[in-house]
C-alpha cells in the first residue's frame, strides 16, 4: 500500500517534470527525467558512476563514523559534566556556526587536498549535529533513574552503559539521521574545493559544461547514497533498541 502510493507519487512527479520542463522552457536548468536517466545509465555503464560514487561513499562514510563517534563522545562527556559544558558551550556554538566552506583554506593547509581533507570536512559537519543531539539526549536522561542506580553503587561507567546510552539513543539516532546528508554534502563540498574524483567532481564537471542532465544524474546518485545510508541507520537503530521493536506492535495499556 505504502509502496504503491510512493510509486504513484514518484510517477506523478516525474511525469510533471518531463512535460513541464520543456513547456516552461526550463530544460536548460532542470533537464528532463528522461535525459537524466539516460545520462545516469550512461555514467553507470561506463563504470565511472560506481567509481566516483565509491570515492564519495568512502569519504562520507569515514567522515560520518569519525564525526558521529566524536560527536557522541563529546555529547556524553559534556552532557555529564555541567561545568565543562557551561564553559565550552559558546566556543562550540561559535565553531559550529562558522560556514565550513569558508574554512576550506585552513582544511587544505592542515590536511592537504587528499582524502583526509574531505573526510575531516564531512566529520566536522557531522560532529556538531550529532554532538548537539547527543548532548540534549544525555541531559534528558531521567535523574531519578540515575539516582536509583547510584544507590546500587553504580560507577559512571555503569550509568553510561545501563542508563545514559539506552536512554539517549533515540536522540543519538535522530542526530545521526540528520547528519547523513551532511556527511555526503561535506564530502562533496570537499570534492568541489579540491578533487578530481568523486560525485562532487562529477557535479561540478557537469555543471561547468551546462550538462544539466549530468548534474542531476550526479545529484540522483547522491540521493540514492543518502537513502542507502539511511536504510542502514534504520536497521541498526532497530537492532540497538529491541525494546522499541516490542513497543511497536504493543497495545497501549494505561
Amino acid at each position, binding site marked *: 500500500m505504502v509502496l504503491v502510493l510512493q510509486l504513484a507519487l514518484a510517477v506523478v512527479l516525474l511525469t510533471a517534470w518531463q512535460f513541464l520542463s520543456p513547456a516552461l522552457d526550463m530544460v536548460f536548468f532542470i533537464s528532463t527525467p528522461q535525459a537524466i536517466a539516460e545520462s545516469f545509465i550512461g555514467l553507470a555503464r561506463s563504470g565511472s558512476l560506481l567509481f566516483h560514487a565509491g570515492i564519495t561513499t568512502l569519504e562520507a562514510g569515514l567522515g560520518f563514523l569519525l564525526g558521529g563517534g566524536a560527536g557522541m563522545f563529546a555529547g556524553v562527556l559534556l552532557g555529564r559534566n555541567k561545568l565543562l559544558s557551561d564553559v565550552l558551550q559558546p566556543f562550540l556554538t561559535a565553531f559550529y556556526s562558522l560556514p565550513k566552506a569558508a574554512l576550506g583554506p585552513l582544511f587544505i593547509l592542515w590536511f592537504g587536498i587528499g582524502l583526509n581533507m574531505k573526510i575531516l570536512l564531512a566529520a566536522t559537519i557531522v560532529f556538531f549535529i550529532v554532538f548537539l543531539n547527543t548532548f540534549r539526549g544525555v541531559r534528558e536522561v531521567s535523574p531519578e*533513574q540515575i539516582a*536509583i542506580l*547510584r544507590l*546500587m553503587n553504580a560507577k559512571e561507567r555503569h550509568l553510561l552503559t545501563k542508563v545514559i546510552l539506552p536512554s539517549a539513543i533515540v536522540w543519538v539516532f535522530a542526530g545521526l539521521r540528520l547528519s547523513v546528508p551532511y556527511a555526503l554534502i561535506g564530502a562533496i563540498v570537499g570534492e568541489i574545493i579540491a578533487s578530481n574524483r568523486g560525485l562532487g567532481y562529477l557535479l561540478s564537471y557537469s555543471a561547468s559544461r551546462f550538462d544539466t542532465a549530468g548534474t542531476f544524474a550526479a545529484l540522483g546518485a547522491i540521493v540514492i547514497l543518502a537513502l542507502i545510508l539511511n536504510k542502514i541507520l534504520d536497521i541498526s537503530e532497530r537492532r540497538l533498541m529491541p*525494546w522499541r521493536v*516490542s*513497543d511497536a506492535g504493543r497495545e497501549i495499556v494505561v
Partner: protein
Amino acid sequence: MSAIIVFQDVGKAFANGVQAVSGINLAVEEGDFITVVGPSGCGKSTILNMTAGLFQPSAGQVLYRGQPVTGINSRTGYMTQVDHLLPWRTVAGNIAVPLEIAGRGKKEIAGEVERLLALVGLVGFGASYPTQLSGGMRKRAALARLLAYDPETLLMDEPFGALDAQMRLTLQIQLKKLCRSLGKTVFFVTHDIDEAVALGDKCVVFTSRPGTIQQVITSSLPSERDLMTLRFNPAYAEECAQLWRILAPALEAQNSPQEA
C-alpha cells in the same frame, strides 16, 4: 544494638517553599524493622529520600552509622514508591542490574535472577519488558531487584501497596524471614495500618504536613510472629485499633478533604 540511622532535628523545606517535615528526631537501631505510617503527603518518602542521601535536609542532619549523610548513601537499598524499572531492559535484565554492577559472573547472575523471579512469583516473565507487566508485577520486579543486592539497610516505600492480599501476605512472610536471618535493618513505609502493626518492631506515626513524629509505638508482639495467623490474634487486633485511633485526628488537619 547501636543506632544505625539517626535523625537529629531534621527538617526539609523544598525549593518551592513547601515544608515537608520538621523537627524529626529518631534513632533506628541496627536490625530494627521500623514501619512508618502517616497521612498522604506528610513526608514519609522525604524521610527515606534523605536517608538514601538523594538530597540534604534543610535543617538538622541525618546520620548514618554516625556519619552525616552528604551524598548518595549506597549502603542503603531503596525500593521506591514508583517502580523506576529501566524500560529498555527486560525484567530479568532489570533484576540483574545490581548484580552486574557488583561484577558477578554471567552464570551466577542468571541463577540468582531465576531464584528471585521465583521468589516474587514472576517465573516466565523474565523476558518481558516492564511495559508488558501489570502494575503489581512491576512492583514485584522492583522488589526482586532490591533483594538482588545486599545492602545493610532496606528502605521500602509502600512495597506491597499494589498487591493482592494473598501475594502481599506471602511476600511479607518472605521479607520478614529474610531480614531476620540476615539481620537487615528495614525502614518500611506503608498506608496499611494492619501491615504496619503486623510487620513493625516499632511503628512511627507521622502527623500531617509538615510531618512531625506524633508517636513511636513499640510493638507488643514478639519479634518472631506467624503472619499467617496474626489476623486471629487479639493483641494484634488491639494494636491495629489503637493505631486507627491515633491516626483519626489527622482527619481534622488542614490538608484533609472537605465536604464538596
